[in-house]
């Protein structure tokens, strides 16, 4: 019975990672589509969104079933609690990817689509944070997320840079309002994804050490 439980727990971790990589890839592809003006990159997003929702549902069910059947304790319980929370954070990350993807077809047609400001840089930082949070969860290794707060601060700073630049741009050129508003939205989505990476890092820290921390 114990073997079976631990096998199921390993399978749960694999499911969370699979969902995490899908959510991260949705975000990455949406930004890449903006950069490359390649709308075909976001064509599968309806399917991905459905897959993400299914994974969210399956992981939640699996967690509740493991708790009900095995009454796990200690690190086993912390792993399940972490999986349940990560599930929600990762779902949100994937949805922000979808929200960015929705903007892509209109944006690539505008005259301003070459001006992405620091969005690609911000996306790289955010995606790196999510990847490392997932790696920390997979390997139960906190060293890869030790500097996550500093990275989060850089993401925040970039968001305000983009906000300021976009406001200036809108003041100078009324025709750029649509584009700039979308940039502000995208920066906001990426900043939220960075927050979710931090929340995942907090939960992984709890899973590994039993200690609850607040990164910010």
């Amino acid at each position: 019975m114990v073997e079976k439980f631990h096998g199921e727990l390993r399978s749960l971790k694999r499911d969370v990672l699979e969902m995490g990589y899908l959510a991260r890839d949705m975000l990455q592809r949406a930004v890449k589509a903006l950069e490359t003006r390649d709308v075909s990159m976001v064509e599968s997003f309806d399917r991905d969104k459905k897959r993400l929702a299914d994974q969210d549902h399956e992981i939640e069910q699996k967690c509740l079933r493991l708790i009900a059947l095995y009454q796990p304790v200690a690190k086993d319980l912390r792993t399940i609690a972490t999986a349940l929370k990560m599930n929600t954070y990762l779902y949100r990350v994937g949805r922000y990817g979808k929200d960015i993807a929705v903007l892509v077809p209109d944006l690539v047609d505008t005259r301003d689509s070459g001006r992405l400001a620091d969005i690609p840089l911000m996306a790289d930082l955010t995606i790196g944070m999510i990847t490392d949070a997932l790696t920390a969860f997979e390997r139960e290794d906190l060293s890869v997320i030790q500097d996550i707060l500093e990275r989060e601060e850089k993401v925040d700073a970039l968001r305000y840079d983009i906000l300021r630049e976009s406001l200036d741009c809108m003041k100078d050129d009324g025709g750029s309002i649509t584009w700039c508003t979308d940039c502000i939205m995208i920066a906001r989505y990426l900043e939220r994804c960075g927050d979710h990476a931090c929340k995942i890092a907090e939960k992984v820290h709890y899973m590994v050490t039993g200690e609850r921390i607040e990164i910010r």
Partner: protein
Amino acid sequence: MDDSTILETRDLNLWYGPKQALLNISIRVPKNTVTALIGPSGCGKSTLLRCFNRMNDLIDSARITGQILFEGDDIYADRTDVYTIREKIGMVFQKPNPFPKSIYENVAYGPRIHGERHKEMLDDIVETSLRRAALWDEVKDRLHEPALALSGGQQQRLCIARSLAVEPRVILMDEPCSALDPIATAKIEDLIIRLARDYTVIIVTHNMQQAARASEYTGFMYMGRLVEFDRTQQIFEDPAEELTENYITGRFG
């Protein structure tokens, strides 16, 4: 010993003949709480429980060193009366063991041998004890029927009522639910939690979920040692010792 500690052992060692069953146990049991002792078979948890009211005195080959303090007094001191200790520190066993007498006589037995003869007083003790053991409503109309006609769960609550009748301070329970079905177990667990308002309960259990549900403090024992003693939530959420973690998560051996 601070005010909140009712029982304490200091470097307690116990041998059964040449075999050492307890090694340097130092534990402080907080007053008016439920403390659970968990650990694999043969780890010494029942032996430790039996030390608290000197039940091991009944085993010829048992020998102890170290101290056991009840409310600050050494229970093995020459001046200590073992019967007084067992009156103050009662015990409930794994298998319900009512006397082959009526329900009433089971509860009245203890006070009677301690000299209580007045019927009104005995009636009062019987009712109070049965109420505290959450059994009164089920047996009040058949107090003079044989105790052995009760169900297993009722018999166990009767044994708890019997131990309460002599007004103990501490109740020791050695796997009190292992012979009971889940409904009777749930009733005993609810009772254990309620009893901790007025008494200190120490329970030995193989059922880790029971320890998690019913106790505020948990001690994990292994091969005669107390590996870890802490608040139950801490033990089951984030134990300090790897050995504890391995045992409670089933990764043992």
